[in-house]
C-alpha cells in the first residue's frame, strides 16, 4: 500500500515535470516561429531571471500574491467548489485596501493590518456571494463566480475613478497611499517586502487547516462525497460557504499585501490575473497548500523570464499564457502517463505478491 502511494507520488511529480517540459518545447517552437533571434530569446526566457539580482528579487515579489490566491483556491477546490472568484476578490480587495490606506489615518504598525483586514473582508464577501448563490439557489459556481469577477472589476473601477481618483496623477489612478500603510522592504537591492512573511504564514496555516484540523477533514469530505458528508451529519452548506469565505478572504488579503508592498497608489487598469494564476498553481500543486510555494516559484520564474524576453527581444509576453494553459491541460489529463503508471504499480504488486508467497 505504502509502495503504491510512493509510486503515485512519483508519477504526480513526473507528470508535472513532463507537462512543464512539453510546454517549454512548444514555447521554443513558437519563439522560433515569431522571432528573428530565436536562440537569444529562448535563452533570455529560460535563464534571464537568474542573470541579475533585481530579477531574482522580482521572482520572489511575484510569488508573494500568488501564494495567497493559490492557497485560497486549494481550499475551495478541495471543498469541491470551482470558484474562480479569487480574481475579483483580489482586485476588489486591493481597492478596499487602497480606500483604507488613503482615507484612514493610523500609526504605522496598525495601519497595514487594518488595510489588509478590510481587503480580506471585502474579498470574502465577493466569493461568499457565489457560495450562497450555489448552495441556496443551485447556480453553477463557475458561471456565477466569473460574472462576479466582472462585477467586482466595475465596482472597483467606480471607486478608483470617482471617490479615490487623483486628478493630479494624469491617469486613472488613486491618491497615494499614506506612508504609514506601506509595507517595509526587506532587502536593499530588491522590492521584496514584509508581505513575504504573511505569505509563508498563509501557506503553513493553510496546510495545518486542511491536513491537521477537523474542519479541514470536513472540507475534504464534502469535496470527495457531498452526500456521504451530509449523511454523516456534516453541515454541507455551512462548510462550503465558510470555505469559500476563507478562500475569498485570502485572495482579498493577498490583494492588499500586493498593493501595500509593491505600489504607491492603485493603478490597475483591469483584472490583474492573480486569481486565475492561483487556480493554475493550485492545479500544479495538486491542491496541496504545502506545494504551493514551489508551483508559485515556477509560474513567477516563467513570468519574469517572459518579461525579460519581451523587453529585450521581439517575442510578446503572452507566450506565458500559452505555456500556462499547456501545463494545466497536461497536468489535469488523468490518462496522460496513466498507462505507464498502471504498469509500474502492477509490477510492484506482483513483486510483493511473489515475496509473500515465498515466505
Amino acid at each position: 500500500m505504502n509502495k503504491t502511494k510512493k509510486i503515485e507520488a512519483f508519477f504526480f511529480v513526473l507528470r508535472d515535470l513532463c507537462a512543464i517540459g512539453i510546454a517549454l518545447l512548444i514555447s521554443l517552437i513558437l519563439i522560433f516561429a515569431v522571432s528573428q533571434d530565436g536562440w537569444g530569446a529562448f535563452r533570455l526566457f529560460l535563464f534571464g531571471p537568474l542573470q541579475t539580482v533585481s530579477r531574482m528579487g522580482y521572482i520572489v515579489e511575484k510569488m508573494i500574491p500568488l501564494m495567497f490566491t493559490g492557497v485560497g483556491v486549494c481550499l475551495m477546490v478541495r471543498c469541491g467548489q470551482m470558484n474562480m472568484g479569487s480574481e475579483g476578490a483580489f482586485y476588489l480587495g486591493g481597492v478596499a485596501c487602497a480606500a483604507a490606506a488613503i482615507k484612514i489615518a493610523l500609526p504605522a504598525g496598525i495601519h497595514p493590518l487594518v488595510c489588509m483586514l478590510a481587503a480580506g473582508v471585502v474579498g470574502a464577501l465577493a466569493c461568499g456571494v457565489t457560495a450562497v448563490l450555489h448552495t441556496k439557489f443551485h447556480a453553477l459556481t463557475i458561471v456565477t463566480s466569473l460574472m462576479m469577477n466582472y462585477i467586482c472589476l466595475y465596482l472597483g473601477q467606480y471607486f478608483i475613478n470617482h471617490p479615490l481618483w487623483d486628478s493630479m496623477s494624469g491617469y486613472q489612478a488613486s491618491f497615494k497611499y499614506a506612508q504609514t500603510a506601506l509595507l517595509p522592504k526587506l532587502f536593499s537591492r530588491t522590492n521584496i517586502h514584509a508581505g513575504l512573511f504573511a505569505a509563508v504564514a498563509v501557506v503553513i496555516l493553510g496546510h495545518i487547516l486542511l491536513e491537521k484540523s477537523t474542519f479541514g477533514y470536513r472540507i475534504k469530505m464534502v469535496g470527495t462525497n457531498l452526500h456521504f458528508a451530509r449523511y454523516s451529519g456534516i453541515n454541507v452548506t455551512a462548510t462550503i460557504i465558510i470555505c469559500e469565505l476563507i478562500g475569498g478572504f485570502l485572495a482579498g488579503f493577498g490583494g492588499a499585501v500586493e498593493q501595500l508592498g509593491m505600489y504607491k497608489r492603485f493603478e490597475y487598469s483591469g483584472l490583474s490575473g492573480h486569481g486565475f494564476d492561483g487556480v493554475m498553481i493550485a492545479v500544479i500543486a495538486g491542491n496541496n497548500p504545502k506545494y504551493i510555494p514551489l508551483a508559485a516559484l515556477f509560474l513567477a520564474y516563467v513570468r519574469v523570464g517572459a518579461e525579460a524576453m519581451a523587453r529585450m527581444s521581439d517575442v510578446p509576453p503572452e507566450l506565458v499564457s500559452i505555456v500556462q494553459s499547456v501545463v494545466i491541460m497536461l497536468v489535469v489529463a488523468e490518462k496522460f502517463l496513466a498507462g505507464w503508471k498502471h504498469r509500474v504499480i502492477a509490477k510492484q504488486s506482483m513483486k510483493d505478491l511473489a515475496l509473500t508467497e515465498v515466505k
Partner: protein
Amino acid sequence: MESVLGYIFSTEFIIAILRMSTPLILCSMGVLLVRNSGVVCIAFESMMLAAALGGVLGSAYSRSLLVGLLCGIALSVLFAMLFGFFVLVLKANNMLVSLALNTLGSGGTVFILFAFTGDRGSSTSIQSLQFPTVNIPVIQDIPILGNILSGHNILTYVALVSVPVVYLILMKSPLGLRIRAVGENKNAAESLGTSAMKTQFVALFIAGIFAGLAGMYMSMAYVSAFTQDMIAGRGFIAIAAQNLGGFMPIPTLIWSLVFGASNAIANAFQAINMPPEFLQMFPYFSTVLGLMLVGMSINQQEKKKAAEIEEKSKLADACEGNG
C-alpha cells in the same frame, strides 16, 4: 429619465436588443447542444475569441469573406476539438481544461495577432472584411415593422434561424436523439451501440461552428476589428442563458434576448448621468440576478413537491389506519 423611457419604447431599442443578443443566441445554441450531450464545457469564451481573430486575419489576407468565415470556424472548432480531446479522451477535469483553453485563447490570440500585424492591442492596422447587412425586399417598405425586421446583419438572421435548426437537430433528427440519449444516460446509450464519445465530439463540433459564428459577429459585424479580449464574458453569459433556459432551445433563446436587452438598457442609460462603470456592470449583474431568480423558483417548486408528497403519505397513513 424620460429620454430613457422614450428610447425603450422605440424601434431602435428592439434593433439594439437584436444586435446585442446575436452573439449570445448563436453561442448559447452551441452550449445547448453540448450540454444536451452531457458535457459541461465553459471554453466557449475562447472559441469565440479564436474565431473573432481567425475571421479578421483570414478575410484581411485573402480579401474573401468566405475564406475568413472558414478560418474563423476552423479555429473555433479547433478549440472545441482540443477540449474534446483532453476531456473525453484524456479524461481531464472539464472545468480546468476550459479554464486553460480560455487562458490560451486570451493570450494566444494576442500572440498570433502580434505575429501577423506587429500590434498587440487591436487589428486596426489590417483591412479586414465585414459581414453585410441584409435588406429584405417588400418587408423593408412596411412602416415600423420594416425597420424591425429588415436591415440587420446577416449573422443576426443566421442566429434567429439557428434556433429552429437546433430544435430540429435535437428533437427530430437521429443525431439529436443520440445526443439526448448520451446526455441522459451514457451507459444505457452505449449498451445500445451508440458511441458516447463520438456523439459528444459531434456535438462539440457543431457547437464550435455556432461559437465561431458568434465570435466573428463580434469582430466582423458588431465592430470592425479584433481587439484584445473583445468577447468580454459573452461566452459565459451564453452559458448562463443555457443554464437558465434548461435543455430547450426556445427558453434559451428567450434568456439570451433578456441578457441582450440588459446590455441595450445599459446603453440607454448612458443618456442620463449614471457612472459608466455601473452601466458596464449591468449585464453581468443581471445574469447573476437571473440565476438567483430561477434558483428561487426551483426552490419553490421543490417545496411544493415535498409538501405534496407529505400530503399523500399522510393520506396513505390515514387510509391504513382506517383499514
